[in-house]
């Protein structure tokens, strides 16, 4: 007879169940279910891919702004109608993760067929670019078949883009590796309702003086948070509105500073001119420029230096700020979010008629030299190269680019392509100047200057303190302009060596690879480009001329 205590009937079964129904087994069950679901998804997808009769190509980008993906879906649908044997999948990845995703997929050989170029080293570093991307030089020198029947029919593909496809050309490789599909421009968005309260017109600030007058009146109005309206906010700080002022005020200094007659002024040339006494902070023009900066920044929120993009957009959308300086990429997002009529105009820049600054002004900056953006490259390992190239050709043809960008509300990049109404103000303006003077020469000078500039713009320090601080930083023996020059000298030598590697690569292919196309041409172009650099020695010689002492590369 057993000595164990009597157990109630049925309890043995219950004991067995409760032994299994605990947290551990529930966890194991959950894990098992998730693994099965995941495996099923993979198997299902792979089976679908294996039985897919169409040619599937993937296009990856990071443009998550409203409107872009929807427009891409529509243009893809249109293309698929024309090519029923092709299926295109759009892969939109957030910019922060784009680089990691792309790197992994390219290395594994399973990368997208078309990828937006720029966020990843794979798409910019020469040695990686040649490894993973298809050179497009031969193709872009032929007409784009999708331009047949248009005025661009006979032009080479690269000549059909407004920027001449400069946005797709890699200088060090002397080759095209990407094709831009849209422009990206900065403008001033404004709240028509708020502006109506203070002006008699609805087309935004017509001049810099008008902008200041409007801003002063806006500050008298209180918003629904019972705080004064902020006249203007910027998605990227004040830089977008200050940079055009720099051109407006100092383009005329080009004759003084651009001794190389290249049509632009570099920080290096500015430093040389500064050392020669041709330009400095005592110049009335420069003083006026900084005074204008300060006047402009007074129209921003008092925490402008720490305001980030999201906060700026939020304030504008909520009606707490009347104007917003940001790019064309935000247009669709803003139109869907704002509850007021939205206007777009050029960034306000003083003209020669300006009552205060007119005598110092050359003109506004021109945008003719802007290169196209949102470029796409073709993955060398694509299983459907022909189809991928064909879609890219369609996307950058006159009809395709126009239609896509009108749907996405982005500025088109092809000559003759008409932008949507919203994008008309964003098309590049070719009138204006290109050069501007920039004293922040060198990393350490830039750090000091940026810190002082914010303090100056906020009114915490005066102009003399900004001037002294920047000039002292420039003159610093160890980390000033001389040090920056030595670094640029060193960088130029490295550039020559990097060119030498590319030349060696081309030369080896010419000698050993009978299939190497156009290697001769590329070699010759790069050879001349490299020879003109004179091993960087021009930097040494220039320095000796204006400083009277020699310099060694750092």
């Amino acid at each position: 007879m057993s000595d164990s205590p009597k157990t109630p009937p049925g309890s043995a079964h219950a004991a067995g169940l409760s032994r299994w129904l605990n947290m551990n087994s529930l966890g194991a069950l959950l894990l098992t279910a998730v693994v099965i679901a995941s495996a099923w998804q993979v198997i299902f997808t792979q089976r679908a891919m294996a039985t897919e009769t169409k040619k599937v190509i993937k296009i990856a980008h990071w443009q998550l702004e409203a409107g872009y993906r929807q427009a891409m879906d529509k243009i893809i649908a249109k293309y698929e109608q024309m090519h029923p044997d092709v299926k295109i999948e759009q892969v939109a990845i957030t910019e922060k993760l784009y680089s990691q995703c792309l790197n992994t997929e390219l290395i594994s050989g399973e990368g997208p067929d078309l990828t937006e170029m720029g966020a990843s080293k794979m798409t910019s570093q020469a040695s990686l670019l040649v490894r993973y991307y298809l050179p497009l030089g031969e193709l872009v020198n032929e007409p784009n078949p999708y331009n047949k029947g248009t005025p661009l029919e006979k032009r080479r593909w690269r000549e059909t883009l407004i920027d001449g496809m400069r946005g797709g050309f890699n200088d060090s490789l002397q080759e095209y590796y990407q094709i831009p599909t849209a422009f990206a421009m900065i403008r001033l968005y404004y709240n028509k309702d708020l502006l109506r309260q203070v002006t008699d017109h609805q087309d935004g600030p017509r001049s810099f003086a008008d902008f200041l007058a409007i801003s002063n009146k806006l500050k008298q109005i209180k918003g629904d948070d019972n705080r004064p309206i902020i006249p203007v906010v910027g998605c990227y700080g004040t830089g977008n509105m200050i940079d055009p002022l720099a051109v407006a005020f100092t383009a005329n200094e080009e004759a003084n500073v651009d001794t190389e007659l290249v049509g632009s002024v570099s920080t290096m040339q500015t430093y040389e001119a500064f050392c020669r006494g041709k330009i400095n902070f005592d110049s009335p023009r420069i003083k006026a420029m900084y005074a204008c900066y300060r006047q402009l920044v007074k129209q921003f929120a008092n925490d402008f230096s720490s305001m980030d993009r999201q906060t700026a957009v939020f304030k504008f959308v909520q009606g707490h700020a009347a104007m917003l300086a940001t790019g064309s990429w935000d247009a669709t997002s803003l139109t869907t979010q704002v509850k007021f009529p939205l206007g777009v105009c050029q960034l306000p820049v003083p003209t020669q008629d300006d009552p205060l600054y007119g005598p110092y002004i050359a003109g506004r900056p021109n945008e003719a030299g802007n290169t196209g953006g949102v470029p796409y490259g073709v993955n060398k390992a694509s299983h459907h190269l022909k189809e991928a190239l064909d879609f890219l050709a369609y996307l950058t043809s006159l009809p395709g680019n126009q239609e896509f960008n009108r749907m996405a509300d982005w500025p088109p990049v092809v000559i003759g392509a008409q932008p949507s109404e919203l994008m008309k103000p964003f098309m590049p303006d070719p009138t204006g100047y290109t050069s501007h003077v920039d004293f922040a020469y060198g990393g350490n000078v830039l750090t000091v200057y940026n810190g002082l500039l914010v303090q100056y713009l906020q009114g915490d320090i005066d102009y003399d303190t900004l001037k002294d601080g920047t000039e002292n930083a420039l003159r610093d023996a160890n980390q000033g302009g001389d040090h920056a020059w030595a670094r640029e000298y060193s960088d130029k030598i490295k550039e020559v060596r990097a060119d030498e590697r590319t030349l060696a690569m081309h030369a080896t292919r010419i000698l050993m690879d009978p299939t190497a196309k156009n290697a001769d041409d590329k070699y010759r172009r790069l050879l001349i480009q490299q020879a003109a650099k004179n091993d960087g020695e021009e930097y040494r010689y220039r320095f000796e001329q204006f400083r009277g002492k020699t310099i060694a590369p750092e």
Partner: protein
Amino acid sequence: MSTAEVMPQNKTPDQPPAPRPRLEFLKAKAFNKGKLYLGLLLLMLPVIVGMALFTYYPQYSAVKYSFYDWDGQQTVDFIGWNNYREAFTKDKIFWPSFMLTLILLIANAIKMWPSIFVAVVMHRIRSERFQYIYRVLFVIPMIIPGLVMLLIWKSFFDANNGVLNKVLNGTGLRYVLQDLDVRLPQISEAGVKLGVNLHVTQMPGGLWGLLMIGAFLLSAARGFRKGVVQGWVWWAVLTVAGAIIANFTVSPAVIGNLTIPGYCFVLVWLGLGVIAANIVSATGNNGANIVRWIGRIVFTGALLWILAVILWPTHTKAFDTDAPNWLGKTELIIPSLVFWGFPWVGTVGVLLYLAGLQAIPLEVYEAGELDGIGSIGRLFRLELPLIMTQVRINLIFMTIGTLTDYGLILLLLGAYGGPGSKGMVPGLYAYNQAFIEGRYGYACALGMVMFVIIMGITILYQKYVKVDK
């Protein structure tokens, strides 16, 4: 049946097993150990491989590239010690950036204490249910990712719509700050005038010299006993560190000109301290008490005087409007970075200290009760000494974090450290050099310098933050 039939004939139950030959024995021993090691190794292999690949290899890479001029792409040039030479002899931003780190280090050391007090309070809750509830409440914020926390704090600091300014305006604290913004600079100015009038600033080291007198008198009062050197080292380190901060934050004319002859004042006061210690040893205990009291008065007085002068020296006008610009006004940047994280009760810290407190045996508390110590005495004489292990661990992590962290400043102030680069710390500078200037090799060298400094401080902690059991 006889027992001989039951049991084997050639063995009796009491006999030990026959000894094995030595070689066999060694082989078996090694094999058993090998079996154990193999099992352990196989279990640890994934972690070892992961650590080697993702932790040690990048560190090795950083050490290697610190000797190169590397632009992050193809061009790699071996330049030997040039990066280090530049960091030590030419760089005018790197070393001053340690000043803010030092201030944050002191602030973070003070900010550790709220967690300790909260842990003690939670430990003393009698109801286990409520203790559990509070513990859960403390753990819940941990699910918020760090980046989100930083963004939330950034919105707190927003001048126009931030919570901080709304609280200050709503409670009237802004007016208090506005008043302090007027009064404290006046006190600072008065302190400077007093120092000039009493010729204190003309002494070697100025006000810091006065502090050092007090410090060495306190040390000297202990006489030449074993262990006294440790105390002197700490006093010297703290006062010299403070002097260096002052040298970079306040005009030398106010504090005393800390030039090379000024730094030699350390030797002067060291010498005076030695003399004082000799006198004390000769006079016995009474003399020691007098010297100790003089030291306390001088040290405390000098410390208060210095704080009054350097804490709020200028009238910032930052609180004159109802929207103080916490991240845009140069003078408010350091207070913002110090204030960040209020009320400074970190979940990890609280749980760590709570675990330490719960490990204290009840007998210790009973013994304390018998000795008649109250709740305050329990805190300072029982609980705190017995959780010093946890405090030390946290101190080390806090130091490493403060010295290396720059994410907060990058998010709040940008890559250049905000207006006047007031928020520049060594980590941010290294980031700047790498990702903005493209000088990856130099950034690696800066990282190596920081590593050596952190290691030195960690060794100091290991040696001098002792667990008093």
